[in-house]
């Protein structure tokens, strides 16, 4: 057992957990933040993606104890009063069906747009498809996810990259 302290969605949390506890388990089981999903056991599907210090991380492949002191944002913490532009775009473009991949898709996509904006690079639809390599959706066929990310990217740019 190790004591882990983190900031999760802006709140300080502290738990004693077995050393082998994955971040996904820590969030789901210890904090009961069940928006972060687990869809595979080989770090391939991206249903589990959260932000650590603003960067997309696969929580199924990260030990909770390695993140002592970290700042973690999950899908539950993304909306800041109002829905995030990426969340709005997913619903407006019907970028989700069963919703299981959606939290990971949204968290990955927000980080993607931030990185492209920061680097001053254009996020083309081909780039979006390549960037989503680590996120699998079985329902949507990706078409509407790509439309959603394009749309959110343009709105996030206009807002100055939030």
């Amino acid at each position: 057992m190790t004591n882990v302290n983190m900031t999760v969605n802006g709140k300080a949390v502290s738990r004693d957990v077995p050393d082998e506890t994955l971040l996904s388990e820590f969030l789901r089981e210890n904090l009961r933040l069940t928006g972060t999903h687990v869809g595979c056991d080989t770090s391939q599907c991206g249903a589990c993606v959260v932000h650590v210090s603003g960067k997309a991380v696969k929580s199924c492949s990260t030990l909770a104890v390695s993140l002592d002191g970290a700042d973690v944002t999950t899908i539950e913490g993304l909306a800041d009063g109002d829905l995030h532009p990426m969340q709005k775009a997913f619903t407006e473009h019907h970028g989700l069906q069963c919703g299981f991949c959606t939290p990971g898709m949204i968290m990955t996509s927000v980080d993607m747009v931030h990185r492209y904006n920061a680097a001053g690079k254009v996020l083309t639809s081909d780039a979006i498809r390549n960037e989503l390599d680590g996120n699998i959706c079985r329902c949507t066929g990706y078409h509407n996810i790509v439309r959603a990310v394009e749309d959110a990217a343009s709105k996030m740019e206009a807002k100055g990259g939030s």
Partner: protein
Amino acid sequence: MSTGIGARVTRKEDKRFITGKGKYTDDVRTENQAYAAFVRSPHAHANVKGIDASAAVAMDGVIDVLNGQQLTGDGIGNIICGWAISSKDGSPMNMGAWSALATDKVRYVGDAVAIVIAETQALARIAAEMVEVDYEELPAVAASDKALADGAPQVHENAPGNLIYDFEIGEADATDAALAGAAHVTELSLTNNRLSPNAMEPRSAVATFDEAEDHYTLYTTSQNPHLARLVLSAFYQVAPEHKLRVIAPDVGGGFGSKIFIYPEEIACLWASMKTNRSVKWTSDRSEAFITDAHGRDHISTAKMGFDANGKIVGLKVDTIANLGAYMSLFSSAVPTYLYATLLSGQYDISNIHCNVRTVYTNTVPVDAYRGAGRPEACFVMERMMETAAREMGMDPAELRRANFVQEFPHQTPVIMAYDAGDFSANLTQAMEAANVSGFAARKEEAATRGKLRGIGYSSYIEACGIAPSAAVGSLGAGVGLWESAEVRVNPVGTIEVLTGSHSHGQGHETTFAQIVAERFDLPIENVQIVHGDTDKVQFGMGTYGSRSAAVGMSAIVKAMDKVEAKVKKIAAHVLEASEDDIVIEGGEVKVAGTDKAMGWHEVGLSAYTAHNLPPDMEPGLKEGAFYDPANFTFPAGTYICEVEVDPETGATDVVQFTASDDFGTIINPMIVEGQVHGGIAQGIGQAMLEQVVYDDDGQLINGSYMDYAMPRAADLPDYSVHHASTTCPNNPLGVKGCGEAGAIGSPPAVINAITDAIGTNNLAMPATPQAVWNAIQAAM
């Protein structure tokens, strides 16, 4: 903005999913929660000589380890296939026994032999590793043709030669005669590759037993919670129906794989009673590959005869279907009544004969996966048509058009009676949208880049809206396939609709609300759809076979008819007018042509206060209906795929994919397009990427996302999706269903395009770069 029929309403259910507040089965945590893990066979075929769980049971935090002897000893029944198919000689199918936990024999890698219950999930899994099972290995067989060979290992004693049934449909002699007299006969051997459905949410179950009430509750990843309860009660004797509540909360995709009642749900329910703990099991992805029912896995040979004008005169198909180690719930129906009955395609064919042999093998059970039988039929038909056109030097589109059924209703020689369609209109629309006339120029341009460009068609038809109960009953189904609904108007005028359909991505909470909002001219926010809980919804047959619109919505319409009639009676009484003059619009119930009106909510209130109702009228405003469809529905359309192949590497890109579908009335085009997108993605996945591979000893070779090629965003194109619809004459909304079309129509379009590009027909699915490269080399 309109929210009625035909409007692109964004989904009511989205908010909880995009904010992480969806509630899936694994998100459920109950009081007194314990966790289960299964001890599974690492062998494809073995006798179980003994199980020693002493080391596991001795571990701190392990609650119990239970096995198959105990399960059968407690009277838990065997898992059954619910559709009885007879062989052509009249003999019944040879169904082998399937216990939720194997007792004396295991028959596939993953077959469960024991369930471990522990205080944590991690502990349960470690303890499962500690259970010693003494296996005596037996020879195994994985491929269906090998299973039928002389001397093959026997999977079940009561299925000699591993044959489950030898089924036929159509007229053999007449078809042979037609083929003998044909001017041209096209012949192909076709494999429909084995797939793993891979809904992104792994299966999960949370079972609780309330000893004081002698009552069970099961949260489970199900497409049909009532069917689960029925089967768990009536056949597996887990608990009587009134003592079992099944809840399917948010479910993360199904694609067929969550129709069936699996060993794990049975074992968890039983274990919750044995241990008096709430038992939770969640599959991981590796476990999903070896326990979720697989799909497809057909080997076929087909002969199609044409007269000198290119008119089809006969079709003969011989198919072997692999059903795996045990017969799953609907497994027998998939390669028969959902496959062979669709072998007329969109064409007017007088003579068809199909023979289907299903076999046991030492592999995961095979059952319905998106399309279920219809993709296999479409693949046979559309590969045959394209190949025949090439052989006869005809244009593939025109060969199809010349053979299309033109008049409806049309009785095929293989049971189905097509009710409506305009196949030519879909073909024309797809060709225009795909700019087929510009293809030659695109091909030429691709050649300058060293790429081989090809085009392929697929004109599919499917049977949805499953299904008229009497008809399927006469064909062996163990259940009726109607749907139920209840419409409750509250005293304040808001509405709850309880439906037996289940949404696991289809967006019913929105589309079902749309038809109610339209009918009573109310804000869509005032309508709530309730589904997925056997304590709330009286009964339902669930969601599969693209049946929720055609059957589920029709039941809602029937219930709304009754509500409307009662509303009009109440209003006529209060407003002192004739019922015939009452109209419902704009949130009011009015007397047409006058200013006499009541608010919709006032009618609701009148119904519940009951102070001034017509004589003899019961208070309340709640109506239910069961709807049994009159016929299947027949969505149809044409898909056109364009690919570019790099001849140096075999790498293939789908560069254009165009769909024209006839789904009948469309309730929400946004959602329908989404269904088509997802279906096409799965179809392209089947055609180019996916295949479950077993070695000869029955070991699964590719049981993870490191090995099984799931389609990812960069593997797929944007889709160009169009509609040219005819109305379905057999249900009140004129809807046909759209959930499976994409997966049914797309695989042959892709393979037809690739074979067009590379100039050889000898290419099996999945058309990986290696397979395409090999095909190019072989043709050189």
